[in-house]
């Protein structure tokens, strides 16, 4: 679709995250997989090797492991602003899943849509934005032929 037809947003950070302390925006990550299906092989390998280290490194994120009888394994990431992102991880290797999870933890929860401008500033003008009377003296007297 065109840029006008799809949603778009301006560049922003969640509550100036990083200016003071950095708060990881990933609230909860749930690994849904099946104990016996072959699509969940990568997920099971990742749970054996990498998930405990990930949970230790990201103490602000809650990790849920839920084995269910499901055909397709999923990773559901929930963010602090309420956005939920679901990714299917069928037939992915453990390495790929690890990369995917680090990518999800580095994201803020803002929508992945077209960003209108790649820059944003809270102070767009230092000396003061121009207006018609910046370098023009004001005349309180009425202007016109009768003034002469």
């Amino acid at each position, binding site marked *: 679709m065109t840029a006008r037809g799809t949603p778009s947003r301006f560049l922003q950070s969640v509550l100036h995250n990083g200016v003071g302390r950095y708060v990881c925006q990933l609230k909860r990550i749930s690994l849904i997989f099946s104990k016996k299906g072959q699509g969940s092989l990568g997920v099971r390998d990742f749970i054996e090797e990498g998930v405990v280290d990930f949970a230790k490194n990201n103490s602000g994120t809650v990790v849920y492991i839920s084995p269910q009888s499901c055909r397709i394994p999923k990773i559901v990431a929930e963010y602090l602003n309420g956005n939920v992102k679901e990714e299917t991880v069928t037939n992915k290797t453990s390495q790929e899943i690890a990369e995917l999870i680090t990518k999800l933890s580095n994201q803020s929860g803002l929508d992945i849509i077209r960003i*209108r*401008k790649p820059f944003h500033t809270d102070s767009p003008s230092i000396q*003061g*934005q*121009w*207006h*018609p*009377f910046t370098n*023009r003296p*004001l*005349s*309180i007297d*009425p*202007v*016109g*032929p*009768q*003034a002469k």
Partner: protein
Amino acid sequence: MKYGTTFSFCWSGGSKLLLYHYSHVEVKFIKCFFKMSSFSRSAQQWATFARSWFLIDARMQPPGKIASMCSVRLQGKHKPIYHPLSDIGDHVVVMNTRHIAFSGNKWEQKVYSSHTGYPGSFKQLTAAQMHKKDPTAIIKLAVYGMLPKNLTRRTMMQRLHLFPDDVLPEDILKNLTEELPQPREIPRKLSEYTQEERNAFPMLWTPA
């Protein structure tokens, strides 16, 4: 309140500018310019893109110089936020167009030609004849020729207001913000010099 708001979307350098145009800047608004830092975003936008009204007195002035001043302000080239697509020009009111002063013999020598397209309809008028027929036509044609030759020219011409004498309608008088200085210094007639100045003028020799 004399505001007329028109909203127009313009593309400028790849990004959209939402322009709010207001027909003039009120005196009350002018007084609160002294505290610019306290403006909200929308009020700051309103201030930056406000359209002003200028007044020019064309008495004893060359019409070409008047027209170039008008065209600069009608295009918005006097503003640092100028962009040709932004529709950022101001209104210009020219009074006393009946009393313009061509230099040289242009009143008799300058010819305004027109042709409607039909055979036999080629008309040529000297500047003097044109001025007698319509006292605002000379400045109007001069400004029209100085504006950029694109579709925005007609809109800019609508913002030019010409008056043959110094009688202006009341609603235009209320909108004016600034009178621009005249481009040509009017030379004084001999009768306008005082006797002291005439005596103080240096004489090479006195006719004895």
